[in-house]
């Protein structure tokens, strides 16, 4: 599960959807792997406006990455700065959560991640 995908996941509990605490989910006891993936600059630049930067900042910090700048880079900045592009690529595309949990700050439910796959099936009392 790439860090990019965490930017598009929230708690599966219906009652949590309206709570801002249900997004992003918070990694806990996360074991990461780093894959070696070729940089797709155009993809990253086009992805940028779709990324919730605040949520990504939270995720990156919780995973032990150095703090991201408070503002997302502009597409022009990203295009002109190869180091910046590579850093973002590394965080979003190459970093994967393999084991651990994703925790909802609204209801407290912990979703298990095993072998890179998060399981969002809910126990009956949360459905």
């Amino acid at each position, binding site marked *: *599960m*790439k860090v*990019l*995908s965490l930017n*598009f*996941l*929230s*708690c*599966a*509990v*219906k009652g949590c*959807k309206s709570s801002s605490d*249900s*997004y992003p989910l918070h990694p806990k006891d996360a074991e990461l*792997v780093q*894959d070696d993936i070729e940089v*797709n600059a*155009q*993809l*990253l*630049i*086009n*992805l*940028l406006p*779709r990324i*919730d930067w605040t949520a990504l900042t939270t995720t990156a910090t919780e995973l032990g990455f150095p703090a991201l700048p408070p503002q997302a880079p502009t597409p022009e900045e990203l295009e002109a700065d190869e180091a910046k592009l590579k850093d973002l690529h590394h965080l979003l595309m190459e970093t*994967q959560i393999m084991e651990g949990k994703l925790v909802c700050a609204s209801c407290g439910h912990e*979703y298990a991640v095993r*072998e*890179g*796959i*998060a*399981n*969002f*099936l*809910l126990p009956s009392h949360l*459905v």
Partner: protein
Amino acid sequence: MTKPGQGAEGDAVAAPPVAITTAATAAAAPQAAASSAAPVIAPGADAESYEQQHVHSVYESIASHFSATRYKPWPVIASFLLSLPPGAVGLDVGCGNGKYLAVNPHVHIVGSDRSANLVRIARDHGGDRRCDVAVADGLALPFPPGKADFAICVAVIHHMSTRQRRQEAVRALLECVRPDSGGGKILVYVWALEQSNSRRGWDEGADQDQLVPWVFKSKTKTAGGGGGDTTYQRYYHLYRKGELEEDVVAVGGKVLDSGYDKDNWWAVASRIN
């Protein structure tokens, strides 16, 4: 998840389309894992446990066999995915073995499926850990509202055994995508009732709720033939013409395009802002 009539090995040896509830069918498939005596249509209150038996547990059991017969993307869906702008982020709800996750390398898709065994196959579609997938229920999706550019849902919603649940599933998809002004859209595929030219031969007037056998051929054949084949019964709701569009509208969606494609009805829809 499921495609009839495309040379699926499992389907190829399935029983003809007879009423599944009859004792004759039960006798013809003595090793049925699921009880053939069960009513085809699920009582509403038990819809979930009915689907557990006649959908979820079946796919868990047949995952690898199913996946081996489902590798080719359908053209309408592939062209939908290839038409998306580069950098688009979307969802594949009921991604099965993940055959749509890597069709367009310039978009990012998060796949989900109710079957953990299928999700495991999907994760490695196109290479180790290539695809991002999660185990999730179509009626309790782990996606934030209004954020995805698109969502596809192929051969999934016809497995839900009440109309209310099928409509809720469409609603859940629409909720995940951007409002119409943001260009968000969904693509839904369901099995059609009108398929008189298919092997199963259903058509207008047939029962829309069916149990459809999947024969899992055992590799170890006995001398007498047959070996340990197992027949699983999957529940399907067969959509009549116009029904999918009705369901989209009923949950506040707007049909942008729709059509019929090889025994299936499909619709592209967006949210009404």
